[in-house]
């Protein structure tokens, strides 16, 4: 069979064009814009590191970065560990298990606007969540989930976790299904209980999936935007504003495109560092 040398390239071309248009070109353009004072109105003017300098002194930037880091610390472990148990739960061959797998996945594909409106109702002072908590005598007064600066971020994080569980569960499910049954049987013969099976067999063999999930959820946590936009709008008093939301406001409310691009570049660098760190820490154990 004779292969034309250009054939693979032609297959790649459409993908390259799309990637080029929507990912590489905007990225490089944004890096360029971060060194200008572009505000859509006038032509971009080179201003060197002024944007970065201003960012360094901008308390709002650090505040939103701080929220983003809290997001990372709370959401990533939840989205790395909890779906494992969900996956174990649905990794059975009983009848109707497909139904449960779908049900857990539905939040992932539900429109964030619908999710936002629903959770907004759940979080109301006289909403279902407060009702249940009061019923169980866990609280005396309703918690002002969305209108208190101390709980607004927690409220949004819970929604992110809820929405992401199904997505990572599917990844883990695939990983689980590649673990041969003989291992479980051998472990049982050796007298291992469920917990030992989970920690000694599943966790180590699931490491590649855990690595993937860890990287993906870290990036997702750094980029979180929709939940905040729909549910709290960054409020009250910017207490649930994360980095991407801050960038959005600077770029599209205030039209400080250059400034927002600089913040975007910093976000990019942090995310890159995070991914590399993930690879080094989790990848080392498995020679990945």
């Amino acid at each position, binding site marked *: 069979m004779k292969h034309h*040398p250009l054939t*693979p*390239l032609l297959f*790649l*071309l459409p993908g*390259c*064009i799309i*990637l*080029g*248009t929507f990912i*590489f*070109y905007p990225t*490089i353009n944004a890096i360029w814009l971060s060194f200008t004072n572009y505000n*859509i*109105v006038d032509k971009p003017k080179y201003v060197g590191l002024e944007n970065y300098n201003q960012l360094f002194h901008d308390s709002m930037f650090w505040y939103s970065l701080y929220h983003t880091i809290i997001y990372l610390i709370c959401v990533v472990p939840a989205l790395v560990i909890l779906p494992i148990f969900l996956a174990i739960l649905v990794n059975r061959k009983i009848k109707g298990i497909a139904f449960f797998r779908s049900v857990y996945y539905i939040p992932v594909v539900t429109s964030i606007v619908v999710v936002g409106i629903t959770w907004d109702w759940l979080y*109301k*002072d006289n909403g279902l969540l407060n009702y249940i908590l009061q019923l169980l005598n866990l609280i005396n007064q309703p918690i*002002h989930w*969305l*209108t*208190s*600066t101390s709980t607004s971020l927690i409220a949004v994080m819970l929604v992110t976790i809820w929405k992401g569980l199904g997505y990572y569960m599917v990844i883990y499910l695939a990983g689980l299904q590649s673990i041969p049954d003989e291992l479980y049987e051998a472990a049982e013969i050796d007298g291992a209980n469920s917990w030992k099976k989970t920690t000694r067999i599943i966790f180590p063999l699931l490491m590649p999936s855990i690595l993937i999930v860890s990287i993906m959820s870290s990036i997702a946590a750094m980029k979180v935007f929709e939940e905040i936009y729909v549910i*709290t*709008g960054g*409020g*009250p*008093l*910017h207490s649930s504003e994360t980095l991407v939301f801050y960038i959005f406001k600077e770029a*599209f*409310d*205030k*039209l400080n495109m250059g400034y927002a691009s600089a913040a975007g570049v910093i976000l990019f660098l942090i995310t890159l560092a995070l991914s590399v760190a993930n690879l080094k820490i989790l990848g080392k154990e498995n020679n990945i």
Partner: protein
Amino acid sequence: MILILPDGKQINKEVNREMKFRSLFIIMLLLSMIFVSACSNSKGTQNEGANKKETIEFWTMQLKPTFTDYIQNMINDFESKNPNIKVNWVDVPASDLQQKMLSAVSSKTAPDLVNLPVGFATKLVSMDALVHINEALTKEQQDQYFAGGLKAYTTYDSKVTYGIPWYLSIEETLYNAEIFKKAGLDPNNPPKTFEEAAEVAKVIKEKTGKYGFYPSLDLSLPLRYMVMFGAPLLNEDGTKAAFNTPEGLHMFQYFTDLYKNDLIPHSIITDDERKGIDEYAAGNIAIFSTGPQYLTQIKENAPDVYKDTLTSEGITGKSGLHNMSVQGLVIPKQSKHQKAAIKLALFITNPKNEVEFSKLTTIYPSNKKAIEDPYFTQLPKNPEPTDRARITGAKELENSEVLVDFKGNTAVANELQQALFDALQKSMLGKLSPKEAVQEAESNWNKILENNK
């Protein structure tokens, strides 16, 4: 994967091919990027204008589906009278309009005629991106509109009028007579001032557990309340904040007390006017200040609440001032069909079309001739809430003005709004005392104004 073959030559061939493959791949990637940037720099194809038939694009702010027929009929009428002009009508949701406009203007794909409220036009005005109506229209054409309406769309230094006023709405109070009765209050004696509203809210909360009052705090509303309370926003030449007065402090104190005493819903801090309308329609609030055009929405969505609804003049403070909102039409300078757009604008704002529009919902025409119609001066035989609202409002027109005036600082209007709102939030949430919050708002305003010089 490199296949290890016994023949040394084969390995080299494989490696060579792979390296060639890689470098070609990189070249393809670079080419696609250059291809993309080249495309984005070239101007899109535009209507030459020399063709016989012109197509103009007309954007409205959230008029579908309630007014689809009205607008469509008006457009059909216009097209039949102007056979060389075709109108492409696009309706944009209110929450998207400002950004859609900005991105359209910056990507040079702006429409020809846009129904844009003053607040959304501020950035475009600072970019001088809108056609100067004072130059494009004759004096005669301009004189047919209420001075207040034109003033709303004129820059502070009175040099440029950038929009044609289309319809006006007055802030009025809607109140649920049923809840009033349940609380033992007289529905024919609604509160007229903020103080009275607070007292009414207290009674309603005690007797019915519902919230009496929903003073929305989004957009420029806090600034409006400030003016109503009798504190000016800016000094004479618009260079410094002027609301750090006893009246300004009183306004902060007022809202803080309402919030602390749970007389207004907590969600008021994060929700917007739309949510307030929903709460009112759900029968959870007794008093709601808004433009009477929303009555139509309440009529559709909550007929029970609608039939219990009475209207009164807008609640105001020490100043006795009422706010008028003006919706108008602007023409981006980029438009290649400015003459046709102006024709359409004048057609839309002629007396006949304006009166017809006002018959569909409680808004007021911007055209002086239109207000003479008996529709605005006489109550019909069996008046409905909307009828009462209309007559009340028409009387208020004289005492109404656009209360929030940024005095030449329109470029930083959003920042000023946010700064005042942030300070008010801090006071309401108890993070600062009202006094400290007013001072913080003042110093932030001065910083913003200083940077804007």
